[in-house]
């Protein structure tokens, strides 16, 4: 039982960091293990890379700090080597970093080159996408990463009750759709044929950072979109290809989409208006940002809906 939430402002931007925090915090009872955000700030021509060099529950052994520092310098030197100009590298925690770089080359080779450093995992990469995830509830993660005041247009979030893999940052949602810039996925449910898909996707050269079944969806959508399918088509394909019970949301640079399995086994409540679309596993999350009575509905089985800005 996880909780998912998504929001898209169709008329300009808002403080989505604060809004997502309120939505996710109201669903804390659905998943207290970890909380994650995929937020879209104003797009720039720079690339934002969110990466971590250790997990938050890794043992703080001898020379932990020095090792992280060494690896961070290695990241910077590798970025320079591959032809990226570093604008800024900052960190809010000991182990998670945010780099802004100017880079025109291939994203896959950049990611692979960075992830070759021990402990390094690229959480997100894109012109406006930023994935922030850590252990604890939304209020804790928001405070840790200073998300209050994050201006943006749309985003998704997730509170996790771990069922299929470990409680750590790698197992936390949202998942970036490696190696596709500005695509992320959150998922509530269980996939039953994920080993088969994992093997198949690994054969075609994709990497998986976790044992979590949900990562399949992100990589699956990325592969379909690399083949030229639109987000909506790729999501429709996934309904036939993926087995199990699921409701998931996907975001790209300009759109937000949701898909539900053929049994409609997992909940989702949807609020739609001209300037705002908000959806969440429970209506209480939508009411956390809209302080008035609203008309909401449940999407039906096998339904895929995509909204664009």
């Amino acid at each position, binding site marked *: 039982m996880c909780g998912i939430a998504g929001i898209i402002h169709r008329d300009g931007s808002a403080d989505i960091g604060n809004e997502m925090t309120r939505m996710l915090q109201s669903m804390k009872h659905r998943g207290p293990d970890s909380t994650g955000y995929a937020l879209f700030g104003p797009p720039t021509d720079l690339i934002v890379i969110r990466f971590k060099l250790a997990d938050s529950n890794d043992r703080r052994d001898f020379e932990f700090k020095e090792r992280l520092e060494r690896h961070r310098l290695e990241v910077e030197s590798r970025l320079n080597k591959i032809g990226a100009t570093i604008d800024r590298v900052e960190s809010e925690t000991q182990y998670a970093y945010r780099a802004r770089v100017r880079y025109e080359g291939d994203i896959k080779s950049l990611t692979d080159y960075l992830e070759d450093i021990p402990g390094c995992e690229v959480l997100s990469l894109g012109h406006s996408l930023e994935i922030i995830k850590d252990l604890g509830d939304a209020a804790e993660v928001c405070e840790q990463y200073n998300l209050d005041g994050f201006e943006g247009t749309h985003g998704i979030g997730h509170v996790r009750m771990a069922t299929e893999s470990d409680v750590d940052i790698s197992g936390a949602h949202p998942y970036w759709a490696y190696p596709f810039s500005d695509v992320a996925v959150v998922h509530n449910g269980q996939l039953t044929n994920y080993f088969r898909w994992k093997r198949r996707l690994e054969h075609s050269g994709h990497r998986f950072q976790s044992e979590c079944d949900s990562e399949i969806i992100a990589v699956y959508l990325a592969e379909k979109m690399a083949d030229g399918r639109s987000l909506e088509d790729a999501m429709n394909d996934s309904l036939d290809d993926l087995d199990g019970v699921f409701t998931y949301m996907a975001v790209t640079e300009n759109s937000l989409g949701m898909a539900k399995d*053929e*049994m*409609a*086994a997992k*909940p989702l*409540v949807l609020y739609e208006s001209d300037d705002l679309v908000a959806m969440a596993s*429970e*209506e*209480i999350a*939508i*009411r956390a940002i809209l302080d008035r*009575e*609203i*008309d*909401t*509905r*449940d999407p*039906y*089985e096998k339904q895929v809906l995509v909204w664009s800005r």
Partner: protein
Amino acid sequence: MVTVDDRERRTKYDARGLSEPHANVPKVSDIEEGRASFDATGLSTREINLELRWLLYEEGIGDVTVRNPAAKHSIAVGILRRCNLRIEGSLGYFGLGLIDGPEVVVTGRVGWSVCENMMSGVVVIEKNAGSLTGAAIRGGDLVITGSVGARTGVDQKGGTILIGGDAGAMTAFMMQRGHQIICGDAGPGLGDSMYDGTIYVAGKVKSLGIDCVEGEWNDADTEFIDRKFSIYGLEKPNSFQKFVCGKQLYNYDSLEPHERKLVI
């Protein structure tokens, strides 16, 4: 005097997992001529339910209005007396579960599992409802003016569920008795593995579930439908299709265990 800030008001649990074991009845209602109303803004789920119970059982008030429940879960559960209840706003999951007797109007939307295991009474929901609406209800009328999610009336053992809009997948799954009236369309797997009972659908049915077949229409059906629509003043569609159990899955052993021994 200690001021209570938000942090101290956070939900507390006791050793058995009961939330807010030391909550007090807030007693914030306006009571006038046997009618009471209160604003649920700022009250926790348990405080709202304590207030309701205090009004209904201790003060003996039979007409209560709850304003602004703000989609909280588990509101007005287990009310076992005849009374009028009006809920102005939306409810979250498991609202109005296990009730026996009340007549309820909800002006907003309700989440999953509303009226689960209702025994008797009338519940009218003026907007949409989530999945598992009226799961395992045994009696009474449940009227949803809007549309409902999946698995409406799963394991229904009596009563009537009347839906003004569409219904989702696996509606009336394992239904055992009672009636469902769906004015809009029904999703795939309608009446899957039903044992008994009757489903009326005015719109299109995406697909029938296993062992659900079209039934023969008779005068009792017409009388039943007319009666229900006249009570609730809903707009009646021109025609309905009737679905019942095909009884092909009936595979019961009609002998008691000790009789079986004798036969074998």
